[in-house]
């Protein structure tokens, strides 16, 4: 049953990825600008242009170009970036870790803030504290990450300059890293001075990404906690003499978490989508920032590669959440 579900999901995932590849290819080929003309100095001969067009495969028909590109992608060859003149896959892998680290830190913060707020709200249900949490989460939710980023830049970059608001790491530092997972590697190498510097750069963009998600978690989890708290087994735990906080943490949380989990999965893809503009805002050297440069430079192979990697990330997260839900939900496990 689970395996069947997994295989069906895997198949739809491949269809989705193929669809994304087609859409991005069609959109890009509608582009009026000629990327080859932008690469060459003025006065280049027609023969030079034709040679470059052939080099990048732009002289063939559009359907043929698509399948040549798709064939390459399936072999791990995403082509060569036009503006940076490097292998697209190498460029993407170089930047992806920075984005993954940022998104993961943001997710952890969102869960920590959201769950804390939900527990406080459920504990003090019916009081002014709950109403306050409702209003705060409602307002937080309505303001998107882009605006939170700007608010944070004003508060902690200008008014109270305690955090860095630009870049991924202080440029004067000598980095001993061999991978691009700077944060993970700094921890493994016990170089906590570097960890601190990385976190100081990451904190503001991560908070901007985390706040809307934290608000959603707070609202939904509080709602399910309140429903669970009226059930018999929770009432029994209360009769046994557990305090309200103990009841929530030991009994209610586990059963209330399931609907929130599904939602967090979907929202996590939105969070990753948000890194594109938040990275730009904080000059954070991740995949999203590179994507915007790629669009501005009309770097078709690089755009294709980045969009496809983002799409792969999204469908993988959805698949993981779906499987986790099926594993944790007894009705589906034995169904």
């Amino acid at each position: 049953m689970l395996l069947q579900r997994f295989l069906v999901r895997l198949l739809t995932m491949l269809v989705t990825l193929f669809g994304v590849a087609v859409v991005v290819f069609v959109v890009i080929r509608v582009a009026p600008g000629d990327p080859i003309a932008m690469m060459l100095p003025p006065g280049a001969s027609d023969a030079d242009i034709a040679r470059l067009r052939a080099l990048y495969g732009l002289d063939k028909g559009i359907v043929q170009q698509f399948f040549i590109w798709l064939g390459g992608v399936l072999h791990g060859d995403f082509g060569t970036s036009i503006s940076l003149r490097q292998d697209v896959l190498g460029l993407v892998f170089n930047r992806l870790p920075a984005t993954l680290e940022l998104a993961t830190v943001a997710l952890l913060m969102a869960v920590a803030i959201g769950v804390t707020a939900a527990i406080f709200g459920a504990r003090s249900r019916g009081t002014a504290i709950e109403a306050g949490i409702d209003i705060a989460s409602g307002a937080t939710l309505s303001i998107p990450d882009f605006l939170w980023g700007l608010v944070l830049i004003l508060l902690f970059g200008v008014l109270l300059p305690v955090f860095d608001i630009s870049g991924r790491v202080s440029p004067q530092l000598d980095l001993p890293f061999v991978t691009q997972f700077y944060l993970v590697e700094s921890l493994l190498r016990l170089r906590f001075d570097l960890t601190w510097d990385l976190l100081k750069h990451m904190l503001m963009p991560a908070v901007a990404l985390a706040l809307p998600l934290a608000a959603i978690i707070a609202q939904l989890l509080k709602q399910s906690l309140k429903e669970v708290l009226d059930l018999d087994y929770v009432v029994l735990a209360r009769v046994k003499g557990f305090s309200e906080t103990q009841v929530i943490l030991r009994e209610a949380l586990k059963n209330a978490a399931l609907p929130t989990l599904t939602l967090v999965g979907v929202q996590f893809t939105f969070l990753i989508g948000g890194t594109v503009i938040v990275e730009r805002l904080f000059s954070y050297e991740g995949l999203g920032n590179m994507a915007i440069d790629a669009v501005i430079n009309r770097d078709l192979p690089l755009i294709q590669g980045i969009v496809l990697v983002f799409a792969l990330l999204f469908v993988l997260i959805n698949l993981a959440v779906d499987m986790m839900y099926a594993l944790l939900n007894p009705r589906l496990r034995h169904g």
Partner: protein
Amino acid sequence: MDEARILRRGLSPRLWLAGGWLLVALLAAIFAPLIAPQDPLAQDLMLEHLPPFWLDGAEPGYWLGTDSLGRDLLSRLIFGGRIAFIVAFAAASAACLVGSALGLIAGYFGGWADRIISRVVDIWMAFPPVLFAILLVAVLGTGLSSVIIAIAVIDWTRFCRVIRAEAMSQARMDYVESARIAGYGRIGIMLREVLPNVVPSVVALLSLEMGIAVIVEAILSFVNLSISTDDPTWGGIIAEGRLSIHQAWWVLVFPLATLILTVLSFSQFGEGLKARFDPVLR
């Protein structure tokens, strides 16, 4: 629905506050040439980075100060509202029209129509929306219509998903069955019976989407891909403010506050309307 009773209940404070701000901002945008104290494009390097009126060194007539080219901030905000509201109304309506139509078809008819439309929605959801918007505007060329088309092309899925689910549950209701027995055709039932019942959801989403459209336009202006660089836009002013943040904080603070108020108002207005029309919540 008992219209008279709804009207008698009066407006909730959040509808008042949100609607009030939106009305003020909209009127200011419409009558911008009459209200704006200065020409929003007039540059004067002698007036560079003037502070807002309550600080030392402020000039009369430049209430919120000036930017790095000596342009009046308040006038630029008022004129920037024009583009924000045009984009909000046009993009949200277009997204709503396309998304609701497809959602209604998918939800009510089901079968193949539903399968194809749902698959396309899945594909759309796998794109990072901001990147998709930037890509579309780069491809279509900068300009007001490109921005509107890009937002509509990306965000129709929001309407499609909600309306599909709504229409699906409506299609199973008894009244649809009775209409069928009474001899109405399927399209007739969809338009005359199901459509009116999904309208409250559409209205709330529409208001929310207007706020989102304003943000997306600001993001596009921020990466310099929206309208022409001459016309003031809220995102364009924010981009300038981000650069001169250490010299002139007001160039970032005022457009940011305007944007936050507007987005909050759109979402609260939508929520308020939904609560008002939702028979369960009422």
